[in-house]
């Protein structure tokens, strides 16, 4: 059997081979304790496209995003965003975490959460001015939540919370948008609203990468897929890569064959 190992195995390449893709990962290994959650993963996500990170539970999908953003410290590997090391590009990257990762009983209104997306602009001391509020309200309107600005976040439904998180990311006016399961447990109206916003971002030339769990909607939503199960299984345009054989390799018997055929057929 041919081994499909990562190109660099975590060894830093000389800086002369600059990678200009908006979001590239080389030889990324992350472990919790001694067990690697990701092993020597390479990934390259294309610009002005919507990409999905797909894999079974525990395959390291969320970990990939978190390690790419420095939230989880990798054991080895290198991440470049927009052709630069992560640290220098973070202000042009927006992250939408999983909804369940925060305590929604936190004392904040919807508008307060969206204003966090402007934290770089506001800095430590600047007062929140009307034009900041306008910007935040525009972002809320884009996700259809402008009627909820003064609502306490704990009173929102799951789908509404997810849309508030997306509005906060929009407020950053970033180039790259990384979303962790944006469609998990949301209502159909929210799913429609979110996919509309993401498509408009892509059409504006932004890079959108989402951890995605619903195999049934992959071909409809995404241009590019990245299949992962601890290591990279496959990546490429959805039409070429989202195949029965690749899904079989990714899910390893966790999906019934007829299920795979239906999805990738």
């Amino acid at each position, binding site marked *: 059997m041919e081994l499909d190992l990562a190109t660099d195995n975590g060894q830093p390449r000389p800086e002369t081979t600059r990678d200009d893709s908006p979001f590239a990962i080389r030889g990324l290994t992350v472990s919790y304790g001694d067990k690697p959650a990701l092993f020597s993963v390479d990934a390259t996500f294309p610009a002005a496209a919507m990409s999905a990170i797909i894999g079974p539970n525990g395959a390291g999908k969320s970990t990939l995003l*978190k390690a790419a*953003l*420095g*939230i989880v410290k990798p054991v080895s590997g290198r991440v470049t965003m927009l052709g630069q090391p992560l*640290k220098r590009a*973070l*202000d042009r*990257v927006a*992250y939408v*975490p999983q909804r369940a*990762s*925060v*305590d929604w009983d*936190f*004392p*904040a*209104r919807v508008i*307060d*959460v969206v204003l*966090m997306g402007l*934290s*770089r602009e*506001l800095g*430590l*001391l600047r007062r929140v001015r009307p034009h900041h509020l306008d910007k935040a309200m525009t972002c809320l309107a884009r996700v259809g939540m402008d009627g909820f600005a003064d609502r*306490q976040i*704990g009173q929102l*439904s799951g789908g509404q919370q997810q849309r508030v998180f997306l509005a*906060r990311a929009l407020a*950053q006016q970033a180039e790259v948008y*990384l979303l962790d399961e944006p469609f998990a447990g949301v*209502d*159909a*109206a929210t799913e429609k609203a979110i996919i509309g916003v993401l498509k408009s971002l892509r059409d504006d030339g932004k890079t959108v990468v989402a951890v995605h769990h619903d195999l049934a909607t992959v071909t409809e939503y995404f241009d590019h897929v990245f299949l992962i199960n601890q290591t990279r299984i496959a990546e490429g345009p959805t039409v070429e890569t989202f195949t029965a054989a690749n899904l079989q390799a990714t899910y390893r018997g966790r999906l019934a064959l007829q299920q795979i055929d239906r999805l990738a057929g």
Partner: protein
Amino acid sequence: MLALGYNAALVATGAGLLGVAAGVTGSFLFLRKRALVSDAMSHATLPGLALAFMVMTVLGGDGRALPGLLAGSALSAWLGVLTVSWLSRRTRLGEDAAIGAVLSVFFGLGIVGLTVIQSLNTGRQAGLETFLLGSTAGMLFSDALTIALGGALTLALAWLLRRPMLMVAFDPDYATATGRDVARIDLAMLALALAVTVVGLKIVGLILIVALLIIPPVAARFWSDRADRVVLLSGIIGGGAGVTGALLSGMAPDLPTGPIIVLIAFGLFAVGFFFSPGRGVLAAVLRHRRFQRRVHMRQGLLAIAQGQPVYERLTLRLLRRAGLIRADAVATDAGRAVAAKALLDEHRWQILRADPRFETAAALYDGLRPLDTVLTPDQLTEIDRNLRPEAAT
């Protein structure tokens, strides 16, 4: 305040500033869910306090000089905080276990230190125990000045760091992803709490200072759903408790200051706990009872409309009181009319929930809400077109 005399005014001012600083700083700890770290921190001041006393005495100075004692306690408390952070991050111990371990070991070490000092018989050790529970007796102007300055400086720094601290408290992952150094912001937050703890040692004492960091924010949370207001209100509650407590203890010098301040803060907490309209216990009980009655009423009406008997005592009582059934549980004319309407509403809801076009409205279904508060008359007609004839009557 001046009528109470110079000393009382001095103490009250110091305690008030301390209370504001503790309330404000404590609210960030509370929102970050790390309030108990301050308990380990305050107990970890004791070995430093004892050691500072010994060093200053050995060097021939006054062992009770406040700046020296505070510096010593700050050092050992910071060591305690770092130990808690290290244990919970680098080992399999949870933060709760780390706090317990550090708190007890450092406190034990401090008590040993105090005992040694007593046996040294320097003749000037009297008063070091007052740092356990706090005392305002014999407070000097310079002591009050130290406390006031420390409190003011802490407040200024907390104001400066308020945005990053709130961001980290709400969503640390997002804060990291926007380039914030979460570990450093957390350490800054703990450093502020440390400043409050050390400054408060003299007045409130190390055992109870944690209460002044925790109770005001918890009390404030009852009254607001906005973080900035919780912080502000917490400062006001802490300050109020500080001033009142200091004045009371000034009038009855036998009472230790710390416990009185904490009890007053607790009183303010209790007011919110019971009477806050949003999050108070009383409001929650009333809300639940109201909800329960609506559910029983609705269930009773649906039973009547379908000709089923009603057994539940609460349901019978509610229906009877509303004049919908007679004393022998037979429905009145009015009761039958209301019941028919409830059943019609339920049938309409069923149609609406099966229709994907009404998905947004269907999410509002709770078994209680009348459908005409959700749909426009036109939409209602649309629904009614699908009603089976026997249900529409």
